[in-house]
């Protein structure tokens, strides 16, 4: 699974905002230019980004295997025609190039995921989005990270308990609504306890954040991000 891994690569040392800018610039230009030449250049750039973050190509492809299935299927689906010539090669090529650019965008975002801890992402969100929405988004994301394993184990427990009582023999609607109802009521219980805890700890609009600062390495990478974003409109 694709997650943050502590390391000391070039990407790990960059400011999270720089890395977000690169991803946005890359996605913009990849969406704007699905041509073989542009994709060749972007492939080389993707290679650099992945090397810079120490991302393993094989592991990333395994993590995105289900997305890859669709990307591989799209050109086939696009090429097959009912009737002569049975396979439209131009349509399949266009769709294949379009699929490939999606793969490149996914690989570049994998570099961010591997090289950025949640704390940094949260600080980047709160410093980039001004005011109360930014605060709530930052704190909220941190809470989602914290609660995901808890709620996953809640849902597992519900499913295992249902299986032990032959709940798996019931109809699909019955099963889905039982899981949904129990999951939701547990989630609401947890939310109410969380809100009490937040109030007890003086949950404020202006907490202290970890410091973020652009280092010398950030500036050239930021320039790359801007160039990529501009190249989308050329």
């Amino acid at each position, binding site marked *: 699974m*694709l997650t943050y891994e502590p390391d000391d690569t070039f990407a790990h040392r960059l400011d999270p905002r720089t890395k977000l800018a690169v991803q*946005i610039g890359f996605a913009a230009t990849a969406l704007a230019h699905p041509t073989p030449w542009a994709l060749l250049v972007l492939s080389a750039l993707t290679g650099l980004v992945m090397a810079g973050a120490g991302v393993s190509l094989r592991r990333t492809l395994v993590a995105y295997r*289900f997305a890859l*299935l669709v990307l591989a299927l799209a050109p086939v689906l696009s090429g097959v025609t009912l009737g002569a010539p049975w396979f439209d090669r131009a349509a399949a090529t266009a769709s294949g190039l379009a699929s490939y650019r999606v793969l490149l965008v996914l690989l570049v*975002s*994998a570099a961010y995921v591997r090289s950025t801890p949640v704390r940094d992402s949260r600080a980047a969100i709160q410093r980039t989005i001004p005011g109360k929405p930014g605060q709530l988004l930052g704190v909220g994301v941190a809470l989602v990270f914290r609660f995901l394993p808890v*709620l996953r184990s809640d849902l597992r427990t519900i499913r295992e308990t249902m299986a032990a009582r032959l709940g798996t023999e019931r109809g699909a609607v019955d099963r889905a609504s039982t*899981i949904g109802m129990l999951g939701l009521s547990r989630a609401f219980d947890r939310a109410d306890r969380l809100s009490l805890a937040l109030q007890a700890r003086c*949950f*404020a609009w202006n907490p202290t954040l970890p410091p973020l600062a652009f280092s010398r390495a950030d500036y050239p990478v930021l320039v790359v991000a801007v160039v990529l974003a501009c190249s989308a409109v050329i």
Partner: protein
Amino acid sequence: MATNQTSVERVDDAVVRSFARAAVLAALMGAAVMVGSIPIPFSPVPVSLGVLVVYLMGLYLGPVWGPASVGLYLTAGAVGLPVFANGTSGLGVLVGDTAGYLWAYLIAALVIGALIHGRGQLENPAETSVPVLAAVLLAALTIIYALGTVWLGYMLKLSTIEALNLGVVPFIPGDLLKIVAAIAIVKGGRIDPT
């Protein structure tokens, strides 16, 4: 260390309560996608209970905190929490081929919340009649399908029919089942959001 010299500005109690619910439901959505998902070959979006949680967000959190909760889920996934289909994450998924479905969740939660609760106080959705609930949830599902299909077709250069075959047709039975399940949960009346 960065320090804040300004005095502490407490978050309003009502906001804390709604915010906590939105955050926990966003995590529930991630958990439902992981635990409940069954990948099906030849189709981009696996059958998962994720969409069911989107319905519940709209129904129980309303037109403001429902979409906020979806927003937290999308942001957490974008910065690296493996909450998208099949345990993936990253900003790339939010612009990739299946991004249309994910962004449509925001609008779906907003539409459900607005149609059930209006602009005022949150109401108990159990008081809404079954036909109205069904119509609202079907409308939300239509929005998800429409945006998802348009984006899938644009990203992979597929015609509308091809995109529908890849991204909608295989999921219709599962998604209708989730609407029935959502209505059963609401009508079960065990949860009162007010």
